[in-house]
């Protein structure tokens, strides 16, 4: 979506046209889910929080100061919700403790990867997940996380190396 169209949709939402928000949801749902997945470490919580973030974005869109800042603003909402969630999460609750249903699904091929991702430090996981879930662009990650592309690349490399170690420790795939 180009910037002008996004700006128009945001303006329409702010005027009360909630249906215009659907377009924004289509654009941002993947990235918001990736951020939540990266920060929370499991898809079940990430799905819930991503939904909350997108709905909260609409509910508070009139508080947005600039139509062009929608993406960064929505990302901040998602991150804040994740931080709240992490703080509320019971101490020592492991990020990979997913409900039974999710666990059952996850055995179909990715269980070790999920476990390794959950073990990864949050900032590494976030970068890695954003890379694969959101178009494999370090530039886009840099914009999303407010870092330089060099820093993103360095973090990605470290994340990969750490992930490799974790997978090796589990006896690989």
């Amino acid at each position, binding site marked *: 979506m180009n910037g002008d169209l996004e700006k128009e949709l945001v303006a329409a*939402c*702010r005027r*009360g046209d*909630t249906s215009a*928000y*659907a377009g924004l*949801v289509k654009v941002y*749902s*993947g990235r*918001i*889910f990736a951020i939540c*997945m990266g920060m929370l470490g499991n*898809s079940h919580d990430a*799905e819930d929080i*991503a*939904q909350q973030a*997108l*709905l*909260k974005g*609409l*509910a*508070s869109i*009139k*508080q947005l100061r600039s139509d062009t800042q929608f993406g960064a603003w929505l990302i901040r909402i998602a*991150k*804040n919700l994740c*931080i*709240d969630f*992490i*703080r509320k999460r019971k*101490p020592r609750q492991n990020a990979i403790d997913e409900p039974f249903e999710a666990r059952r699904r996850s055995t179909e*091929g*990715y269980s070790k*990867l999920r476990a390794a991702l959950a073990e990864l*430090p*949050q*900032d590494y996981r976030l970068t*890695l*997940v954003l*890379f*694969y*879930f959101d178009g494999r662009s*370090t530039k886009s990650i840099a914009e999303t996380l*407010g*870092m*330089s592309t060099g*820093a993103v*690349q*360095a*973090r*990605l*490399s*470290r994340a*990969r*190396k750490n*992930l*490799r170690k974790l*997978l090796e420790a589990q006896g*690989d*795939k």
Partner: protein
Amino acid sequence: MEKTCRIIKEQIAELVTGSLPAEKAAELQRHMNQCPACSKYLHALQIDDKLLGDFADAMQPIVTRIEDSVISRLNDVQPSTSAGASGLLRAIVRQRVWKFAAAAAIIIGLVLVMYRDNSSMDITTPAFGKMIEAIEKMPWLHIVSHDNAKNYQRESWFSYSSKILVTRYGNGKVQYLDYPNSKKYIYQPDTNAVTISYTPNIDRVIYDFPRSIVDNSKKRWKADGTDVKYEVKHERGQYQGIDVDFYYSTSYSTYQGMQYLLSRSKLIVDRHKQVLILSESKYWGPNGELRTDSKAIFDYPEDGPKDIYEVGVPKSAKILDYSPTPELLEVMKAYRSHRDNAPARYIVIVVYVNEQTASETYAIDGLETFYFDGINRRRLEVLRFDPVSQQKFSAQCGDSFNSLLKWQREQEKSEFRIWMDEIIMYDGQYRYTQRRSKSTGYWSHFKKVYVPSDGYRLPMGDLIFWRDTLSELGWPNSLLHSGHDRTSIVENDYSKNNNLVCVEVLYDELSRDNKVTLPAKKRLYYLNPQRDYICERQEIHPQPGLAQNPEDWIDKVGAMWAFSGRFSVGEVVEYGRSDLHQWFPKKILMRFRWENPDQTTEERKKTITVYLNTDPEFPDGIFDPNNLP
């Protein structure tokens, strides 16, 4: 493993990401053709790459589900300019809202009384929610308050929606804070002058929002074991012709085994509008002395003061306009942004060396270790080593990150006496403090206090207490948050010669009863735009005749301050670069100079060296309060 292979492996991950230049990639490929181990490692990373890609694809149905679910609920959501429904109260508390300390403090006092009244307006009841909501929805809140015991009075106006806070103090001083425009107006009656200056337009932590205060106090009391007993009575009635609820509260505290009357409070709430209209409270000390005798009257006007003249500042007042320039706003924005983006996962060890005590064998005076994983923080502070053992400690410490960390970890476990040390931990909710007894050398004192934060940020007082070491050394918080009276960008020889941006901050003196309690001073912050806006040099000057003060300021200075106005300079003399390519101050040289009462001058020098690891492996249980020594 050969050294070459180790270096190559470092780069293989970049090869998989595709971020390596073609030339470098070809060189790597040549190596791997001859090296089975590296080739195997590349293959493993490529498999990971594919696995991650497939995993992301497998997650797509979840993204689609999120889209469908959100889109199907769009009609249920009504965009709102303020938090409206009671369900959003939680959101208000969780989000950053504006801090209106003066008014909030009064409301809080009242709300605490309500909270204690389990039979009526508890914080969890809709009645409480409605009251907060009702107050927030009012265009303006106006409070007139005074305290007979402290001989203090104040009148405040504030608006949540326009983010303006105006306060007129009993001595005639007026402060008008216009946050959206980053402007602060201060009127001082003794100089009959209004200073217009910069105030940071920043989100403040919601620490003093009424509901969170109540919530926090409840948890804090519980954690601290504070023994305060409350009796609350609720009555319905009329006040000045309107239906109201009266809340009467009496509290008792325990001191040295004796129970004594702590407070009596009364508050009145308009039953129909659900807003506070009056509060009265008295607090006594353990010996029966009256400490607080306050009364506050609330009303909710449609309009608030549009400028300082509407709250009694005479038109004849001299205007000293130091309004923020666009350049200053831009610099402050960049400064803050880099400060916020400082690494949030690291171990840092800071070593202090005083010139007077340093010898050729590298004697260190103090050491501080800070662990931070983005949420949990732990700091070991060793303010000063025992002078007798200083050489010995220095020899044991070494001067590398690993040797220092190892030594520090051993010290935590030992019972050896160091001059003073303290471990502070924070997990996003509770602050744990463990202190080593000065007399016995044993870890003895333990304290747990509830201190809520907003994500990575702590309430102001605790932020200072905590001092997130890396941020503070690189980007001192004082530039953003201190109560300065004038901020501007200036150019001088130092800034020009070193390509730095110099932000000058002037502070007026603080005085009470015509005596200066803190002299005026000037701070110069030299920021380096080439190095992530790190404050490369900071100077603090005692300064006569600042923003508004007459030049004879020194005559008013109390004796205790006359000789303590010290000049100090802190300067980054060496930079480091983290694994994440971010700059940090590696070595800082501090110099202090002051005048003694006999007019002799003294100077001290101190070096601060930073050992930083932004890719740390945190020791097991390092953030576990149960593992404290």
